[in-house]
């Protein structure tokens, strides 16, 4: 019998090691796996490279992980969301490295990494500072830049519903990067508000097939950045 459930977020993130590359789902607060991130803060791994679209807001979730100075580098498309102060301060102080990537290129680099595509050409960013130093080649009459796939050691994502085989459904725009990130890591960890037995989900509508998921943690009432921030919360 296959059962990918872990009893707690703490146990699910226990083997994340110093220097690991960790993909973290979410676009703004939508899809941000707050409980897994907080468990990672408690766990203490440092020198991490994080791949995530944003850098979190307030003093909770991803922003709290950065504030704890566990992240040495972030690969990101939009690190200055309104309400984001932790990253700008660290960046200006030279305490974190930023690799800025156009959002679609970021998604495709993760998708490619997960699909065994080592690199691809795209016209996105040609002629801009983000293409500097990258190989380029003309296809047809158009210049393209070479972008490399990204793989990670761990992926942390949030689903609405998962089953014991690791099949996952998402909630609305919380889906965003999670399906790609699930494919691109050695170990993919999902926190889901609802966990059901294999066979309970309609196989026609599964978004992330279980082959991409290694660990499922039941987090029945996941916190949201906006609610935590309104309450003035900080973590730890």
């Amino acid at each position: 019998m296959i059962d990918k459930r872990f009893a707690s977020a703490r146990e699910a993130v226990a083997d994340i090691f110093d220097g690991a590359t960790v993909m973290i789902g979410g676009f703004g607060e939508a899809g941000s796996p707050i409980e897994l991130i907080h468990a990672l803060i408690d766990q203490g791994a440092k020198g991490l490279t994080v791949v995530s679209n944003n850098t979190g807001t307030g003093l909770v979730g991803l922003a709290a992980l950065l504030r704890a100075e566990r992240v040495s580098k972030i690969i990101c498309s939009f690190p200055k969301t309104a309400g984001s102060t932790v990253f700008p301060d660290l960046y200006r102080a030279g305490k974190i490295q930023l690799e800025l990537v156009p959002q679609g290129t970021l998604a495709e680099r993760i998708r490619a990494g997960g699909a065994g595509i080592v690199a691809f050409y795209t016209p996105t960013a040609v002629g801009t500072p983000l293409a500097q130093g990258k190989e380029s080649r003309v296809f047809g009459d158009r210049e393209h830049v070479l972008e490399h796939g990204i793989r990670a050691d761990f992926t942390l994502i949030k689903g609405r519903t998962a089953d014991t085989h690791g099949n996952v459904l998402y909630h609305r725009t919380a889906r965003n990067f999670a399906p790609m990130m699930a494919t691109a890591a050695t170990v993919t960890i999902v926190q889901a508000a609802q966990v059901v037995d294999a066979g309970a989900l309609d196989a026609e509508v599964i978004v992330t097939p279980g082959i991409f998921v290694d660990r499922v943690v039941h987090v029945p009432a996941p916190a949201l950045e906006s609610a935590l921030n309104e309450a003035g919360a900080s973590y730890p």
Partner: protein
Amino acid sequence: MTSATSIGWTRDAIAERVAQDIPNGSYVNLGIGIPELVASHVPAGRTFIYHTENGLLGMGPSPAASESDPELINAGKRRVTMMPGAAFFDQATSFAMIRGGHLDLSVLGAFQVAANGDLANWSTGADDAIPAVGGAMDLVAGVKRVFVMTTHMTKEGEPKLVQRCTYPLTGRAVVTRIYSDLAVIDVTARGFALVELAPGITFDFVQERTAAPIITSHALEARQ
């Protein structure tokens, strides 16, 4: 320099003018800020389907408080609604729509637009700025038509329509048409070309506030 706020088109009038040029049934991505106003000025009898790159096609307006969902948001991370027939999808699919040329139109703001269609709208290149690009470079590289909606000049009175962008580029030769508070201007092989002047605005007034030549012979054909 003259303030452009009391003359020419208001922001809503620019949005209304943009909306007139969008065919019924178009798939449209509206940039954050002033382009979002276009959704409030859809001409009677037309329906546009809005794409938001964080993963929704068929985006609707802001929700009533009772329907507000923190995980139903737009690319500006503001809460939105979904229209009948809407669809959710992941980022790779969303950017396949953009990069694969499936969207009909992207409407974006600008720091600068050059006479050759170069766009700068993501960074002023200032030393202390936190660089952030989001989906702008993908949109301009992939969407069939790119409209810019902008004030004709900066708050400091500097022209935004220039011969060459001095800010870091978002994309090279990507802008199709510019809608400012003073005029509608096409980007052509011969540079900026006047399509239409805002009410009460003269050509010379626009040219004086534009840092590259504007040709006028284009106007009639562009309006046909």
